[in-house]
C-alpha cells in the first residue's frame, strides 16, 4: 500500500500543474493510490452534462439499478478542473488535511 504523506504538497502542486500527466513515478503512485478503490460505492466520477462543454461531479451508488449521486453544485467546464477537484477531495479524505 502507498502511504499518502500529508507533507508532500510538492506532489499536489505537480498534479495541479498537469492533471492529465504524464506524472513522475512518485506522483503516479500517489495518484493510483487515490484512484483505486476495491469498493466502488461512493467513488467520484463526472457526468458529461453538456457534451464536450460541461461535466458534473457525481458519485457511483455502488449498486445496479440505483440512481447516481449527482453534485449539481460542482460543475466543471474542463476535465482538468474536474481532475483537480476530485484529487483534492480524495487527498483531504486520505490525509485529513485541507488543501487550499
Amino acid at each position, binding site marked *: 500500500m502507498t502511504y499518502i504523506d500529508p507533507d508532500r504538497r510538492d506532489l499536489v502542486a505537480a498534479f495541479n500543474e498537469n492533471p492529465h*500527466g504524464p506524472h513522475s513515478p512518485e506522483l503516479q503512485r500517489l495518484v493510483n493510490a487515490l484512484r483505486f478503490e476495491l469498493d*466502488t460505492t461512493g467513488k467520484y466520477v463526472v457526468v458529461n452534462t453538456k457534451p464536450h462543454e460541461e461535466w458534473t461531479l457525481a458519485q457511483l451508488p455502488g449498486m445496479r439499478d440505483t440512481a447516481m449521486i449527482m453534485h449539481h453544485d460542482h460543475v466543471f467546464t474542463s476535465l482538468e478542473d474536474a481532475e483537480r477537484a476530485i484529487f483534492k477531495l480524495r487527498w483531504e479524505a486520505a490525509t485529513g488535511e485541507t488543501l487550499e
Partner: protein
Amino acid sequence: MRKLFGYSDQISVRPGDTIRFMVSSLDDTPYRADIVRMICGDTNPKGPGFKETVIEASANGDYPGRMQPMHDGSYVTIPGNPLLDGISSFTLQAMIWPTTPRKGHQALLGKWCEKTKSGFSLCIDENGSTALCLGDGSGAVETLSAESPMIAREWYFVAASFDAETGKMHVYQEPLADSPGIGKATFAQSTSRIAASGPNGVPFIMAAQHKEPGSRAMDARYNGKIDSPRLANRVLSRAEMAMLVDGPMPEVLESDILGWWDFSRDIPTTRVQDLSANRLHGETVNLPTRAMRGFNWNGSEQSWCHAPDQYGAIHFHDDDLYDAGWQTDFELVVPDHMKSGVYCARLIGADDEERIPFFVRPPAGTQTSDVALLISTATFMAYANARTDINMPFAEVKEGGITVLSAEDVFLQENAGYGFSVYDKHSDGTGVCYSSRLRPIFNMRPKTGLWSFNADTHVTDWLESMGQSFDVVTDEDLHQEGVAAMAPYRVVITGAHPEYWSTPMWDAMVAYQHRGGRLMYLGGNGFYWRIAYHDQLPGVIEMRRAEGGMRYQSAEPGEYYQSFNGELGGLWRRLGAPPNTLVGSGTVATGFDSASYYRRTEESHDPRAKFIFDGVGDDELIGDFGSLLGGAAGVELDGANRKLGTPPHALIVARSEGHSQLYFLCPEETPYHHPVMSGAENPRVRADLLFYETANGGGVFTTGSISWCASLGHNGYDNNVARITSNVLKRFLAPEPL
C-alpha cells in the same frame, strides 16, 4: 436523461428489404423519424465534425410515442398441459448451485401465479433456504422452509413434496460437499391447511415465476444453476428421490414421473427436453447460459461435447436478455436510391434524440465499388451496453484519468434491464456470455465516445472526403455468406477495432487473401477473440472468456466451450491461429491515457514499400496528432512477431515509440509478471505499421493501432496518416499484382 430509444430487427439490408424499428418513448411523447446517411458521428471539437444527410424515405414522418417495457431474466417455460393442471400430490426436486441465495425470494421449479397467489413452487426463501410454497388462489398461502441458509456457489440437492390427501409437506436441502463449513442436510415437514390450486393460468416455470397470467413480466428471478429438475405425481421417499438424481430413469418409477428434464440435450438450442413418457418439452427464454458444468462434473473432460452428461446444468441470471420483443413502430422498405453505406433511423422528440444504425448493401449480385468497408458488427455487439467504467474497480487507474460518464452510461446504471455486454458480469458476479442486438444498444450510436461504431465513422468520413465510393459488408454478412460477401471487392477496409471473429468469418478472410484480395486493417486489437453466432436465433453472439487475453471477467474452468456450436472459445492466438497469420501483427499492449506516433524504419525505404510513403518525408513523425488521445499510435497496439506467424517477408515500415507508463503488455504477451511491463520501459510496447504481399497479387496493410483512424481527419485530411492510408488504398485499387 435518455427518454427515446429503440432498435431494429435487422442490421444489414439491401434495397427492397424491409427493416422494422421498435421504439420506446418513456413519456409516451410523439417523435419525428427520418432516415439519415451517417458520414461522421464524432462530435468532438477536435475531430472532423458531425455529418449526416437526410434521405428521402417512406418511413420519414411523425409517430406517436409509447413506452415499451423490458423483461429481463431467464427461465424455462413448459407449455400448459392437462397433466400439469391436474397435479394434486407431487414431488419436485433438482440439483442447484445458487449464486445469490441471500438476494431474496427466488423461484426454482413450480407453477405459481404471484397475482392470485395460486399454485405450487419449490423456491429459495428470503433467508436463502429451500422452501415449498402452496397457494389455493383465495389468498391463503402455506410455506415450509428448510430454515438453513444456503451458501453461494455450492451444489445442493433440493426437493419438496406435498400429499394432497394428508396435507403433509416435506422439504429437503442437502449440500453435495461433505464439509463442516457448508452445513448439514436439512429436512422439514409440516401439515398444510390448504391444497395447491389446480389450473391457475400459468405454465410450469423454472428459475422464475409469472406475475400474472399472460404477462411477460416475471418475478422471483433466480440466479444460479439448475441441473436435473424432476417432477413426480406423488410423494416420493428420499430413497426414491435418490433414484431420480442421476443415471437412467428407473423403470419402477416411470409411471410416477411427470417430468424428467435433461438440460444436457439440445445444448445449442433453446429447447429443453423432457425424457419422461409425457414429453413435456420446454423452451428457454432470454438465453440462460448452457453448456455449464453440472453437479457431477469431475474434470475429466473440458468440453461439453465430449461428456454431455456432465453438462446438465443451465445457469440462469435475473438480468439475462435476448430479445426485448417490442412492438414495431415503423418500418422501412429500403428504396433503390439508398446507396450502400451506413445509415440511421434518426428519432427526435421527448427532449431527446436517438439514432438507430443499420447498414445498406448494394442490390444482391451487384457491387458499386471496388472497395468494401467491413463493418465490425460483431465487435459492436460484444461491447453492447457495457458498464465496465461503472462496475470495474480498476476502470479509473486503467484509463489514467477520472471516469467520465455519458447520459447513456447514467441511464444504464439506473436501468439494469437493458442487457449487458460480454465485458460485464451478471448481477451474481458471473461473466456474461451472450450479447444480442435485439434491444436498444446505447453505445452503438453516433455522438457517443470514440469507440466501436462511432470510431469507425472516421473511416466513412475519410472515404467520403476523398469522393471514394465504397460498399459495406457487415460481420453478420461475412459469417453467413463466407468469402462470397467480400470476393467481388479488390480492397477490403476494416474499422478501428475488428476484434471479434467467428470461425466462418475467419475462414472467409483467409480465403479472401488466398484469392488475391487486398486487406487494409486500419485498427488495433483486431482478430483477437473467437465468437459464435447462433444458427437459428438472429442477432446474438456468444463469447467465452477462456484463459489468456485482456478480460474484465473470465469463464469458469470447464466452461470454455461455446454452447452455440461446441467450439473452444477464447483468444484466436490461444487456439493456434494468431492474428499475425492473418494481418501480420497481434495485440501486444494497451493503454488509455495517451497516444503516440510512429517513426519510419529502414524497411520503409525498401522499394516494395515506396508507394506507401509517397509525399511523406524520411524523418517525419507519423501521426503525432489526432482526436483520440492526440496520436495515431494508441489505445490498443499490435506488433509483429515471426514466432506467432508474421510472414517472413512482411515489412515493418514504421514503429511507434514513446508510450507512457500506463501502457502495459497484455497478459498473453508475458508468461510472468515482472516490473518491466509498461510502455515507459518495455520496448515491446509499440505498434508496427506493416505491409506484405499475399498470394495471387494480394496484399495486407496493417496499422496496429486503434487510434489510427482518429488521426485521418486532422488538418482537414491533410496529414501524413491520411496520406499514407490514401497511398495504400490507391495502390491496392490498382489491378497490377502487388
